[in-house]
């Protein structure tokens, strides 16, 4: 009798959430939905456009088909240029991201001011999109692939610098101490104690960023910074939709191939 009273009372029906948990859940859902409703309600959205959107999309699809394959021959050179922009941009990043990462990692930076500078470089570089960097560099260097290379490089510094700085912060301090104990200078500690530990991460991020950069460099031409984007933009503006299809298919192929290569290489080195 007594033991029965002390046994916990299980409800007849099992429920995943207690009433309190369920209530907070619903409150979250309500909050998320009302934020979305507010966002959509105050945006200037012409809902009427949805009425004929399917017609517009169908019209576009009809105009885009069939692809105008004669155009393919003219795409080879710009495609190679696109790949060059991405690769050279990544190569430039490789040299700039290093010092920035060492400044931004807590255990290798000189003092708190240099740490802040390093962090600021990384945040500013990442916050500004490649296209915006390209706008800037087109204004400086004039239209062409050079502006694209610098745009790619400046956007990638933040990305690579952040990942490398995190890797530096997580290194094995024992190796650093061992090198320091031999009386090595600061530079030697960096070169022999720290660098070999983060090198695989560095190569990995370089290859990873390279394939993102291929994707980014396909649109640099929209602001005049070289690559296949120039042709894409002009074909769209001239309503040459069958050419647009050919460009999109080739871009798809190149991006997919670069993603495949990058994944394979990263598998090998990490």
């Amino acid at each position, binding site marked *: 009798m007594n033991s029965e009273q002390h046994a916990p009372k299980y409800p007849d029906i099992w429920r995943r959430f207690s009433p309190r948990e369920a209530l907070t859940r619903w409150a979250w859902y309500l909050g998320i939905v009302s934020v979305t409703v507010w966002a959509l309600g105050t945006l200037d*959205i*012409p809902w009427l456009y949805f009425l004929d959107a399917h017609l517009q999309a169908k019209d576009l699809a009809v105009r885009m088909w069939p692809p105008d394959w004669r155009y393919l021959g003219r795409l080879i050179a710009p495609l190679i240029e696109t790949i060059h*922009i991405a690769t050279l941009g990544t190569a430039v990043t490789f040299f700039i991201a290093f010092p920035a990462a060492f400044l931004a990692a807590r255990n290798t930076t000189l003092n708190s001011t240099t740490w802040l500078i390093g962090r600021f470089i990384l945040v500013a570089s*990442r916050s500004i999109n490649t296209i*915006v960097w390209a706008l800037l560099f087109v204004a400086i260097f004039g239209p*062409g692939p050079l502006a694209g290379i610098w745009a790619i490089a400046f956007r990638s510094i933040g990305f690579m610098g952040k990942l490398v700085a995190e890797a530096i912060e997580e290194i094995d301090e024992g190796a650093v101490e061992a090198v320091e104990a031999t009386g090595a200078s600061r530079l030697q500690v960096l070169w022999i104690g720290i660098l070999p530990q983060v090198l695989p991460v560095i190569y990995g991020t370089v290859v990873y960023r390279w394939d993102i950069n291929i994707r980014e460099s396909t649109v640099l031409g929209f602001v005049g910074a070289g690559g296949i984007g120039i042709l894409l933009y002009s074909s769209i503006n001239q309503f040459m939709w069958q050419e647009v299809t050919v460009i999109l298919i080739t871009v798809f192929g190149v991006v997919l191939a670069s993603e495949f290569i990058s994944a394979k290489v990263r598998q090998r080195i990490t």
Partner: protein
Amino acid sequence: MNNSSAEQMTTAPQWHRIRLIEPPLLRNGLAVVAMAYIFWSVGSLDIEWNRVAQGLPRAGSMLKRMVPPDFSRWHLMTRGLLESVQMALAASFFGMILAVPLGICGAGNMVPKPVYLVARSLIILSRTFHEIIVAILFVKIFGFGPLSGVLTLTVSSISFISKMLAEDIENMTPGQIEAIRATGADFPKLLIYCISPQAMPRYLGVSIYRLDANIRHSTVVGIVGAGGIGQVLAASFSRYDYDFSMAILMTIITLVFLGEFFSNWVRSRLR
């Protein structure tokens, strides 16, 4: 035996740096190939060097016109900024919702092969094209304005979140799935009681990350006319209003920084 161990004692241990690629021939060969590539590619690129030579003084004069940043047209800026944030919020919401079915269909252990293949190719297709390309197609269909921006960001959010979700579901241990199936649960019950509790934390984390990524991308889809602060920025650039551009850039950096901070904070709470 004895002889060889004595030999080991006398020769100093050889120390050398750890290399990523050990065979020296391959390593140096790759370096030579890389150098050759750089020379070839720089040579083949169509760069006007005398135009580039003017670059440095131009950058100087541009920088001079950029400072001090001109915040006097702040109302234009705040309107653009608010629009960007709203676009990001709406796109993240729809992306999050619509990614669930696509993510489940993209998980090989949940659905039949044909469904899986279709879902996966949809994900790959929308991931491959840059936001700007998607935006320009939407601008052609829906006209200029934030609607095209919202749709663009929604598409990229869907593909991003659903890819993560699909991989997450595929990596689940089959034990729990079998246990719930053994109770006689049908497919919806399996999703609610087995898949969702396991996938939820990462799914929420990825969605919050995507919100932060959408804020970053929403600042740029405006360049092809899809609304947001990017449109204001592009306009100021084409009018050579560099001091206003600088003000916008500084605001974007602040906004992105805050977005990232918020996203990191929420994700650390979720864990």
